[in-house]
Each structure stands twice: as structure tokens, then as C-alpha cells.
């Protein structure tokens, strides 16, 4: 999807009735997806003093990231997304929201980001956008900073796409691949240190979680690539466990904790 198309869809035509929660139904809930799928993958890098979230939408992951940072910067191409986050996290004065052009991070101070995060958003972005964000990250990451980006790997299936043999592409950007991401990191003097290439609602491994850092940081290592065709099976297990352990099982307790956290935020 091109930048203008992304802006048009997420700012105008998409109806955000469930704040993006709907995309977590496969995991049972966003909470189950966060604690069962995402947090285990990023737990070594958080909490972090300054976290940058790119393309937060209406705050599906911001809700969790805000408790893991002293300062949380959120940047989205869609003004309605930043506005929705402002309303949703009204009392959280340590969150700063910015609308950008979908490619650049001028509002983020150089060398300031201890952890950069983006999940379930940049999968729709084409390779030029990822290339630009990797270039930006080479300036914005703190000396020991780490990034975790979820992006498309659909480009690996160019032939199947052309022949109509894909089981599903889920709006993934056809120009982007895991290999390109690692290449961009090398091009901009970053180290891509881990890539989990996964299926997402399809048989093909259309998605990728890429972890990157500055060359020479304490996280630096040769890139470990893992092709995980069992990603949807993991989601199914989490969905089956979700009713036992997630907020929906204890709505009053969940609301109590949310309220307490909000009171803490406003001081």
C-alpha cells in the first residue's frame, strides 16, 4: 500500500469501532496477544527509558508500552489515530503524540530511543517506507537502543502472487521482504540481529519480526533467522487460554486496575 493510500484508509475510511482490538481476535484478545505473543519476544528490551512506537493506530499496544517507559513517543501518519490516543491516554503525561509523513521521524531527538516498536501496522508499508524508517532509526536509536519492527515479507512470494496461488496476503505490502530489511540495516550501519519470519492467517510466511540495534551495541550479534510456520498454531493456543486468564474473565478487577493506573498517571 502506498503512503497516501495508508493515510486515506487509516485516517478516513476505516471505522475504528474497537480501537484495533478486532485484529487480535485470533489470539482471543489484544491482551492475550500482548502477554502471550509479543511481550515474550521483546521482554529483554523493556522497560526502557524512552520508547518510540511507530503507527500506534488507536493505541492497541500503547496501552501496554506506556507502563514500560518513562517517556513514550508515538508517531502515526493518521491524525485521527494520534487524536484517539490523546483522548484514550489523557492522563498519561509521559506520552507525546506526533503526526508524521509516514516516512520520517524529525520530531524524535537523535540518539534518544532506547526501544523502537511497531506491530501490525508497517506490514502495510512498502519497501521505500521501511528503508526510510531504518535510515531514521540509524540516527534516532540510543547507543544501546534496540528496535522491533513487524513488517511484510510478502515480496518473497512474488511468483505465487502473480499466479494467484497465495492462500492469503492480508494487505501485506508486496514489495517488502525480510531480506530487504536486513539489507537496509546493513546499508544504514545498523545490525539486524534477529528475524522471525511467520505466517499470519495464511500458510505462507508473509510477515516478519525484525530486531535491530546499533553496530557494536551490547545487543549486537550475527543475524539469527527463524522461519516459524507455527505462528498461527501459537495464536490458537493463546485464544483457547484467553478466557481463563485475561481481563474478560475479571472485568471488575480489570477496570479497577485501569482506574488505579489512570489515577497514578494523573498524580
Amino acid at each position, binding site marked *: 500500500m502506498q503512503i497516501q493510500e495508508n493515510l486515506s484508509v487509516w485516517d478516513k475510511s476505516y471505522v475504528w469501532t474497537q480501537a484495533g482490538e478486532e485484529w487480535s481476535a485470533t489470539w482471543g484478545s489484544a491482551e492475550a496477544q500482548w502477554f502471550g505473543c509479543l511481550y515474550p519476544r521483546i521482554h529483554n528490551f523493556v522497560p526502557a527509558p524512552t520508547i518510540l512506537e511507530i503507527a500506534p493506530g488507536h493505541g492497541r499496544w500503547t496501552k501496554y508500552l506506556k507502563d514500560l517507559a518513562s517517556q513514550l513517543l508515538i508517531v502515526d501518519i493518521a491524525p485521527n489515530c494520534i487524536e484517539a490516543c490523546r483522548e484514550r491516554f489523557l492522563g498519561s503525561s509521559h506520552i507525546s503524540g506526533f503526526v508524521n509523513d509516514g516516512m520520517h521521524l524529525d520530531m524524535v531527538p537523535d540518539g534518544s530511543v532506547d526501544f523502537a516498536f511497531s506491530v501490525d501496522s508497517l506490514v502495510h508499508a512498502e519497501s521505500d517506507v521501511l528503508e526510510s524508517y531504518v535510515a531514521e532509526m540509524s540516527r534516532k536509536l540510543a547507543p544501546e537502543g534496540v528496535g522491533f519492527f513487524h513488517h511484510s515479507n510478502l515480496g518473497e512470494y512474488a511468483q505465487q502472487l502473480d499466479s494467484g496461488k497465495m492462500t492469503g496476503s492480508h494487505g501485506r505490502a508486496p514489495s517488502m521482504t525480510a531480506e530487504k530489511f536486513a539489507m537496509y540495516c546493513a546499508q544504514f550501519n545498523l545490525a539486524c540481529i534477529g528475524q522471525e519470519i511467520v505466517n499470519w492467517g495464511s500458510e505462507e510466511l508473509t510477515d516478519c519480526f525484525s530486531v535491530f540495534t546499533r553496530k557494536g551495541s551490547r545487543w549486537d550479534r550475527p543475524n539469527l533467522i527463524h522461519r516459524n510456520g507455527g505462528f498461527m498454531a501459537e495464536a490458537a493456543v493463546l485464544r483457547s487460554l484467553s478466557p481463563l486468564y485475561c481481563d474478560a474473565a475479571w472485568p471488575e478487577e480489570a477496570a479497577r486496575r485501569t482506574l*488505579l493506573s489512570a489515577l497514578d498517571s494523573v498524580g
Partner: protein
Amino acid sequence: MSITDNVGQRICHVQEEAARLIQEGRPAEAATKLLAMLTECQTADLWNDLATAAYISGDLVASERAYRQALILDTSNRQAAVNLSFVLLKQSRFAESLPIITPHLVSLTSDESAAMRGLVTR
């Protein structure tokens, strides 16, 4: 002086009298006066005061109903929203209270905030 001004003055007078009665520990008498005024003129503030009188009398059901009526008349009435949240939190109805209080969290006074924290952490 217009008729409207006259009603406005009487509302103020009834509210002041009700506040005095509540302070004197006579919430039932305050409620009677507020109800009489409400038969003449419906305002969110009168319903809010009636709800407070009911709350002090220990009638949480009547109190909740009156605060909700205040919010029907004026959805942005901060005091009624904060008070209704307290009534709900007192009954550990956190899920109902959350959306009502959230827009007003940043405007809570330190006393309100401390009282709310007390209800949430007990």
C-alpha cells in the same frame, strides 16, 4: 426582573438552604426542598444536589438515579459525573465507573483523587 431571573434566584436560594441542611445533618429535609423545586424547574445542578442529599442519607440507589438524571440533562456536568463515579466505586462497580470518570480524571482535585484512590484500593 424577568420571570426567569426570579426562578433562577429561587433555585439558588433552595440550593443554599439544602447545603445548609445537609451540613446540619438534615439531608431528608434538604431532599424535600430540592424535590419541590424540581417539580417547578429541572436543572442538572438541582438533581446533583438531590443525589448528594440521598447519598448522605445512605440511599445509594436514589443517589445513583438522581446523578444519572443530572447527567441526562447535562452530559458534561463534571460534578455529577465525579459524584456518580464515587457512588459506583463505593459499591465496587469499577467497570461502570471507569468510562464516566475517565474524561474528568485530569480535573480531579487532590481531595477527590485521594478519596477515589481510597475506594479503588480498599
